[in-house]
């Protein structure tokens, strides 16, 4: 991967997004991150924006600022996401709304705004974040799984709409990875979930960056609209 490339990653304060920021900084890229909270990642090539990914006005402003400063964006990782484990019969609509706002609306907005910047330079790679909860049809995760199903659909349609601009749009569906997102899931439940995978273990941060590297490498220009699930889930 070329150094001096510019990668925009959403949800970089902690978890997978934080790991990916450090991973791409290490490789020499300029990393532009965002999350609702402040980040304590200090690096000369890291820039942080405190925004909610579903806040249209702030997203438009952020991308305009990035465009002004850097003139282009090479890669976009729509990592920001939230989950909630609950039986549907016990789930308030406000929770469903919150999940859809961050996961679906946030992903859509970044694809749209960054897509325009990439379209201008007739190049770009976008990777959205799905989950194995969708194909495994996990009980207790209806809103989360449905929001990520929407992301898969978005990925496939945008792949077509963006193809004339030489932008690829793919998705990565991680298995559980040990972050705050899954820390509160009861142990037996998590064990049962892992048993549904083909390879029965937690995913690691490296499992994630491995797939991302594939989607982002120059040679993957003919790969678009694809969803790769970890752990042999399909």
């Amino acid at each position: 991967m070329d150094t001096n490339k510019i990668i925009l990653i959403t949800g970089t304060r902690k978890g997978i997004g934080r790991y990916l920021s450090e991973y791409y900084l290490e490789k020499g890229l300029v990393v532009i991150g965002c999350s609702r909270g402040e980040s304590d990642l200090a690096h000369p090539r890291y820039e942080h924006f405190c925004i909610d990914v579903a806040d249209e006005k702030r997203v438009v402003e952020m991308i305009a600022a990035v465009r002004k400063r850097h003139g282009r964006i090479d890669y976009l990782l729509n990592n920001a996401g939230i989950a909630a484990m609950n039986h549907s019969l016990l789930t308030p609509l406000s929770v469903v709304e919150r999940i859809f706002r961050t996961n679906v609306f946030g992903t859509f907005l970044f694809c749209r705004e960054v897509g325009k910047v990439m379209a201008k330079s007739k190049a770009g790679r976008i990777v959205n974040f799905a989950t194995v909860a969708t194909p495994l049809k996990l009980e207790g995760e209806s809103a989360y799984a449905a929001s990520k199903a929407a992301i898969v659909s978005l990925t496939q349609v945008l792949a077509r709409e963006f193809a004339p601009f030489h932008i690829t749009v793919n998705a990565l569906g991680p298995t559980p990875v040990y972050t705050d997102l899954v820390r509160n899931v009861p142990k037996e439940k998590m064990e049962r979930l892992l048993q549904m995978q083909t390879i029965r273990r937690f995913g690691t941060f490296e499992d994630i960056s491995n797939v991302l590297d594939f989607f982002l490498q120059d040679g993957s220009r003919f790969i678009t609209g694809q969803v790769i699930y970890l752990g042999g889930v399909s």
Partner: protein
Amino acid sequence: MDGKKIEEIVITAFNEYFETQDIQGKVDADTVLFGEESALDSMGLVNVVIDIESFFHAEGYNISLTSERAMSRKSSPFRTVSTLVDFIAELIDEASK
């Protein structure tokens, strides 16, 4: 920013796009932007809209031509160059309030 300047920016964006695509003809205020009379296909229009937006963003006006207002109008602001210019003037006016 006054209407004349906006019109200039819009017309330049269309003419530049026409040039890169080898589309014959010049754009003026009455040029029809879509439909059978237009020299642009829908991808062409998307391209020019992105160019126009990014021009205004660079000037510090974070307007969005794809706002709900644009979609919900009885008659689309994208009919002709002059309707598009009026619409942009409205957006800029509103943004500066």
